[in-house]
């Protein structure tokens, strides 16, 4: 598994994901609940691929296309990505 190179905190990643999901769902970011599954905001299995691509560009590293399937809420995903980034930084 490729790891994000840009170090980012859980909060930074959460805020970024909230904006992305809000933009996708065409709602105000305040309406996004980080504990709700992505599917609740109209993100189907293929559309989530777009967000993985945006995330790859933002974190400057390849990520699995199935990321949003295995970490189905903003909270899960942000925590996972922050932990991966931290472990990469401690190794590198």
């Amino acid at each position: 598994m490729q790891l994000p190179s840009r170090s980012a905190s859980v909060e930074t990643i959460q805020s970024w994901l909230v904006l992305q999901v809000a933009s996708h769902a065409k709602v105000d970011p305040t309406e996004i609940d980080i504990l709700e599954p992505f599917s609740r905001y109209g993100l189907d299995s293929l559309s989530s691929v777009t967000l993985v691509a945006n995330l790859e560009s933002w974190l400057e590293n390849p990520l699995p296309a199935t990321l949003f399937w295995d970490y189905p809420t903003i909270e899960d995903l942000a925590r996972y990505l922050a932990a991966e980034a931290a472990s990469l930084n401690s190794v590198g």
Partner: protein
Amino acid sequence: MQTARTEESHATALPQFAAAEAFDLAMGHPLEGARPLSFQQVMALDEGETYPRAPLSFLKEWGFQQYHIPVAHGGKLAAYDEFMMLVRLLAGRDLSTAVAANITLLGGVTTWVAGTAEQKERVAQWIAQGKHISFGLTEQNHGSDLVANRLCAEKVDGGWLLTGEKWPIGDATQSSAMTVYARTDERGGPRGFSLFLVDKETIDPQTWRPLPKIPTLGMRASDVSGIAFDRCFVPDSALIGPLGAGIELALKGLQLSRTMCGGLAMGAGDTALRVVTDFALTRRLYGSPVLAIPHVQSTLAEAFADLLIAECVTITGARALHVVPDQLSVWSAIVKYLVPVTVEETIRRLSVVLGARYFLRDTHWEGIFQKTYRDSGIVSVFEGSTVVQLHALAVQLRQLLSGRKAPVDATPIFDLSAPLPGLQLSRLDLTAHGHDSAIASLGHLEEALAALNGDPSVEPACLQDLLAHARALQAELGALKQDVDACANPGERSAEAFDLARRFALIHAGAAALALWLHSRRNLDAFMAGGQWLALGLQRVLAQLRPSAVRRTSPWVKPVLDALVSLHEHDRLFSVTPVQLAAKPVS
């Protein structure tokens, strides 16, 4: 400039197409009525809506099924472009037979991608025995919405109980086994589905039944039906890959079958062009052959050029599976979108030349044209429709246009003489992570073309045209990037997003054709190496990108038409690598 062509001058030295020549010879010319794959026989099967048993027995005897087993498992599937050419020649005879014969590629692929060694061995044995494996993916009420599927697998001791229906499924009734896509988590979601390898010959007959054959517009000899399970037990050893990997594996497997659809569509295009060329040469109107009419000349030459571009997209897609399997989500979507719609449009335009005969069911080459016309329409629909492909491209568009350089040497995709790496299906990926080696090649094409200046094998005016087309494709790429940046959400299922994806596919097609020609021309015959077909084909790709451009008769219509007639008279395939076909019987 070589103009007079002998039979030898069409010869191709590319070893991957030797099997195709042997295969066509074994099938015999399509007008040899008694042969199982003659037009007369397949027309009778179609009229009778009868499953093509005789053609399928012939294929089994010839060993066609060996190409559904990777070499690593004892079969002959070594190079996907070699396999694709066989599919194409078969599809040129009868799409019903081609789909029935190749359903196993679709039904078996997820086992090759993620099955256990035991499952792979089992599937290899079934295929070697000539058994068909179908793919039970879609359901009546859910179309291409995979997460909405209802057929469920309930865990019990030692296995699973399948309950629900799959419909419409190719070869559902005739196949001996089926890979079944089932809900394994009642909450659904992208990890809520799994695949099961179901041996229809061993499951309890009280717990399943076939659903009736569905009447269809074309491919009437096909078994398009379904299956219904009612608490049907399958053992634990039926589960393919990890639990919950169903969507992921189905989407990866479909990348191979969608690429194969390029071969199915090309076969239909070949036959339509062959029949209409023959008609234009033999039918006389106003005191001359129909071929003397300038509109007919343009129609035929343009159809040939369009099919050659479609062939370049198909062949490079097949080779990309070996060289850049991690990009296949993009290549397969472009093949599956662009090649069938190009062939459909080509057939529609060719029908004009036939006049009333296109509508008649038994005259001129057994009436095969109208059957091809009807049959070919399904290729853009099955295995994920045109809009499904455009959506699959659209979700990746922004990243694909970000200009990322693929970290591999893509030359073997385009150089037909380059050896291909073996299949590495574990490297398939759901997205290309921004990489498309055809688009990436566009930046180098102008320089490579300029290097041909003064080369006697390319006419200077043709080279100038090719250079202008290469620049125009670059400009179109720049314009597309701007339009994608301006689009609020290219991942949305909107007409705007689909049109952006369509333009991306066309630019990819132009780049792939140019790159194939540049890298392979030393192995092509004098006409194909001369590039006039490419200049004509690219002009037409660009016209689709700039629909307002004024239509002018290209200077390349005449040489392209001459080559088409020569290939037809020598029973050669209308191809960049004109495979020798079975000779026409002396009547």
